[in-house]
């Protein structure tokens, strides 16, 4: 295992120390592993918190700031944070207007956030709503299973809901927008290589020089299928087809197209993929109204990418364009 770390057991706390040193506009509760806005709670504003296992950086801590999240809870690598962390974060950001929990649909995340919400309701009497993102079309949806994973669309949702909350929307409205974004967004990912959980010390799976995993999540899990390595054009087709067919996105739709890097793939390659995405969507008569390219929701050093589409209307465009000031996404301020 080759990593720039001191000790597999201190990776998360060491990284939090680095975030604190690099971003004075953020506050960090090192014991509870909560990153929050220095100006929390923001009077009158609905609080937005998210969290999950570490190893997906910049998600979520890199999205804390004006116009996006109020707080993010960091778990161990690929392991959901614990309810007391989310409970603490909820109390830190609640200004009386209530708090939205943004939860990626993984059993661990869902159960731990559920317990946190129960605690907050009992002890602190905070109004909490939860949105569970489940945009990954690689997994069939079903009532009898854990359902689809929350992946790339979570990033877009945090930005858009953050803008709504910053603009003064109440908890019900922010939650409604969250459901709309989750409903209009779809994603799928692939891997060229596995990744190594520091505490495990070796790659989660092995992949031959000529193979790729299609339909991966963001925890280094193997994907739905193992296939011969394809070209960027083939891979873009392979990921976009199920996405477009699922919603479906149709001729005349305007979308935000998001090509995400899994952590070990350089920007040069992500742009090669984006060119193919643009070509394919053009063929479908779907217009790219907004674009995002880069490593925003990663799996440690995994090489690969995911593609997300979000259908846009004027409201979503306005909220996407609204000013945001975080470590990883910033514009307009």
């Amino acid at each position, binding site marked *: 295992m080759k990593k720039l770390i001191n000790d597999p057991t201190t990776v998360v706390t060491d990284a939090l120390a680095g975030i604190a040193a690099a971003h004075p506009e953020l506050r960090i509760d090192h014991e509870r592993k909560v990153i929050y806005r220095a100006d929390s709670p923001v009077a009158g504003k609905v609080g937005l918190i998210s969290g999950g296992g570490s190893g997906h950086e910049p998600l979520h801590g890199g999205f804390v700031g004006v116009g996006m999240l109020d707080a993010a809870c960091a778990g*161990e690598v*690929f392991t959901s944070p*614990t309810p007391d962390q989310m409970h603490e974060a909820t109390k830190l950001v609640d200004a009386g207007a209530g708090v939205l929990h943004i939860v990626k649909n993984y059993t661990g995340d869902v159960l*731990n956030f559920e317990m946190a919400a129960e605690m907050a309701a009992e002890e602190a009497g905070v109004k909490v709503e939860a949105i569970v993102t489940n945009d990954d079309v690689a*997994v069939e949806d079903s009532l009898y299973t854990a359902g689809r994973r929350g992946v790339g669309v979570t990033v877009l949702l945090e930005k858009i809901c953050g803008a709504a909350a910053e603009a003064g929307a109440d908890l019900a409205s922010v939650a409604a927008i969250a459901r709309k974004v989750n409903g209009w967004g779809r994603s799928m990912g692939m891997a060229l290589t596995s990744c190594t*959980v520091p505490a*495990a010390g070796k790659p*989660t799976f092995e992949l031959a020089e000529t193979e790729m995993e299609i339909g991966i999540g963001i925890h280094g*899990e193997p994907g739905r299928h193992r296939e011969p390595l394809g070209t960027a054009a083939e891979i873009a087709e392979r990921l976009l087809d199920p996405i477009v067919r699922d919603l479906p996105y149709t001729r005349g739709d305007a979308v935000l197209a998001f090509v995400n890097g899994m952590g070990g793939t350089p920007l040069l390659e992500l742009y090669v993929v984006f060119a193919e995405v643009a070509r394919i969507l053009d063929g479908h008569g779907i217009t790219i109204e907004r674009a995002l390219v880069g490593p925003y929701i990663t799996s440690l050093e995994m090489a690969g990418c995911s593609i997300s589409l979000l259908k846009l209307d004027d409201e979503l465009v306005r909220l996407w364009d609204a000013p945001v000031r975080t470590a990883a996404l910033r514009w307009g301020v």
Partner: protein
Amino acid sequence: MADDVVTVARLEAWVRLFADLIAEHRGYLTELDSAIGDADHGINMDRGMQAVRAKLEAAPLGATDELFKLVGMTLVSSIGGASGPLYGTFFLRFGTACGPSVALSADDVVKAFRAGVEGLVARGRPELGDKTMYDSLHPALEALDAAVGVGMSTGEAFAAAWQAAIRGRDDTIPMVARKGRASYLGERSAGHQDPGATSAALLFEAAAGTFEN
């Protein structure tokens, strides 16, 4: 075995032995999780049970409900991942069912186990055949209940429950997962033993080990 009482000291010994077995199988559990999950179940459970062990060193022996509230809360606040709330809820409900007593009858123990498993089911909504820890916990609980019902000693009863847990664990191998991370693999999840069902079998191995003679 009506006269066969279970002291809080015995119950704490059970928890400590479970911690030992988890530490011993840490790598194996993570190995299983890397095949159909995210390679951390052993790491998670060991982090949690080490925390429990530390708390037990500090805290003086109290009543059974205190003991299991401590265990449950510690697991909930130190594991994260699916297993934290699931094992945590199991022990929390187990403790509530025990009440403030310092010694339980065998029937009380069965009631406590049932309450714990029901709490876990309420939390995770697993069904039999979903390829989860429940597939090992459920048969173990029923075996324990039956054994106590026919008057076996706690030692014999837990031994029977352990055997049932192991069978339940092995039965997860061919299953296609419908809950937890493994469900994302679809058909690819078949042919692998479920990590949580494996740690759940260790919970009963610890009980059998604690209560034999």
